């Protein structure tokens, strides 16, 4: 029972991590609250669903979904955020909210308001040992997020690009004085972060077996809460916060029956943490 809850919590928490990492990376480098990131996530799910319909292969549809999201993220950065960086930070935030609303509506108008089933299977089958059970999609989620996190970690710590990304997040001005092309680094940030969001969209689409226009609404708020919990811009903190929220949701809802929807858990946790650890779980003043 306990192990089962743990596994469910980690599975859902790792998807949260995939969504929130892009958000925290964007905040780290541009100090923008990228609300439309959740739109990019939903876009990934739609592109993935559509390509799955066309070609019928889950793995390929996952890659196409990620590519679609990455491209969309890049365009958002290039044509919407970059021109607004000299303005007060409310400007890109409002653009981001407007874009998010417009994206959701576009999904609804093009693909219809109803849910579309995303019944992708890779033929792994479910795993059950006694009472403990992992569904095929849970295994997929754990495997794919694990793989992506390892790749991201390797990029950030083992490559020159990753070093430049971390340096830019600390101080873009100084980094550019060392001859690093900051604009390219920003673009790579968006490409990577958006691809991860796209992967999360596809995985949730398959996990819930559906894709729908407002599937980004709750992740939009929740991932922001997670990013604050992790300490805005802090990558390890974000992974930790994602797992904490995923576990808290499964435990509180599964064990203690609180009269709230599970989606409020992240916010209650965030407000509590802000009162006692204002810079997030791993943040520093």
């Amino acid at each position: 029972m306990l192990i089962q809850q743990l596994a469910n919590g980690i599975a859902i928490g790792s998807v949260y991590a995939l969504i929130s990492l892009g958000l925290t990376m964007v905040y780290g480098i541009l100090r923008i609250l990228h609300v439309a990131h959740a739109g990019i996530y939903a876009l990934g799910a739609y592109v993935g669903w559509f390509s799955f319909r066309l070609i019928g292969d889950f793995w390929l549809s996952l890659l196409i979904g990620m590519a679609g999201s990455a491209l969309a993220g890049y365009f958002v950065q290039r044509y919407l955020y970059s021109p607004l960086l000299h303005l007060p930070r409310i400007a890109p935030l409002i653009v981001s909210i407007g874009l998010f609303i417009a994206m959701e509506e576009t999904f609804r108008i093009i693909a219809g308001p109803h849910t579309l089933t995303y019944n992708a299977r890779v033929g792994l089958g479910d795993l059950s040992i006694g009472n403990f059970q992992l569904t095929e999609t849970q295994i997929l989620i754990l495997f794919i997020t694990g793989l992506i996190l390892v790749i991201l970690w390797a990029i950030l710590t083992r490559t020159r690009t990753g070093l430049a990304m971390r340096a830019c997040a600390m101080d873009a001005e100084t980094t550019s004085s060392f001859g690093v092309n900051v604009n390219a680094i920003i673009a790579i940030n968006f490409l990577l972060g958006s691809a991860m969001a796209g992967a999360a969209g596809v995985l949730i689409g398959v996990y819930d077996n559906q894709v729908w226009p407002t599937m980004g609404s709750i992740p939009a708020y929740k991932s922001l809460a997670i990013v604050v919990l992790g300490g805005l811009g802090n990558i390890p903190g974000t992974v930790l916060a994602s797992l904490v929220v995923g576990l808290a949701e499964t435990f509180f809802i599964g064990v203690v029956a609180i009269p709230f929807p599970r989606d409020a858990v992240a916010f209650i946790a965030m407000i509590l943490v802000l009162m006692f650890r204002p810079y997030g779980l791993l943040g520093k003043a």
Partner: protein
Amino acid sequence: MMSGYLITILITVLVYAILAHSLNIITGHAGQISLGHAAFFGIGAYTSALFYTQAGVSFWVAVPLAALVAGLVGIFLGIPCLRVRDDFLAITTMGIGFVVEAIFLYIPFFGGAMGIGGINLPHWFGREMTKSEYFFLILIVFLLLLLLDRRLGRSWIGLAWSSIREDEQAAEAMGVDLVRFKVLAFVLGSSIAGLAGGFYAHFLTFIMPQNFGFGQSIVILCMVVFGGIGTRWGPFLGAIILGVLPEISRPIMEYRTLVYGVLLLAMMRFQPGGLLGEESILPKMLRRFQSHSSEKG
């Protein structure tokens, strides 16, 4: 006598105008981003509705109580959020909006999804107010708020807010207590939103959690942004245009939200000052027109 339909639109626009101006105090004057303004609107509406329907308190007491409770919640939530970095307020207010809506929806005391009904227009001279009279009552309140806004803008408080909006670090080096003045703006704005909520509840006669969700917060923000953040008349203009737009856009009902989103995006991307902002189209045209006519004269 005005028609019922017209008066409904007028009252709605006025309530939005009060809301937009209250958000303008927080976001326009003090430069703090709140994404959960509708929560305080809702707290006001529910406070007034509950006092009125459960405790039998009259409208004239229930509505000020709405402002008071919204303001107190503002203090309680504002202090932890405003103590830390600026971006936290945007996210936590969004979270507050989410949690407040969930409380209304899931706790039976607040009526759940069915909301609260049986809230009536105020009584005076031994009878119920007509809608037209109610409109003038709200109009007077709105005008008083504009006066208060103007007075504050000319006071040291207004100056302290401007300095915080412009540059927090420089402001505190000049003796401005950041937390005090940010919390003051947040509490004042929240409290006025609560007042608007009280008026709205007695006009709608029944309220539901959905009236006060994130979407509503965005509509209010949209009005401020559209008219011009921090300008004196911008929020009012925004409330008029975006308050009437849904009525005249019934034929394109299907695309209304899309239009909202695109409008918000395009406005900030190309006219970040809003319609009345200093470097925007409207004031520029006005100035050109003025210089043009003075050349002639």
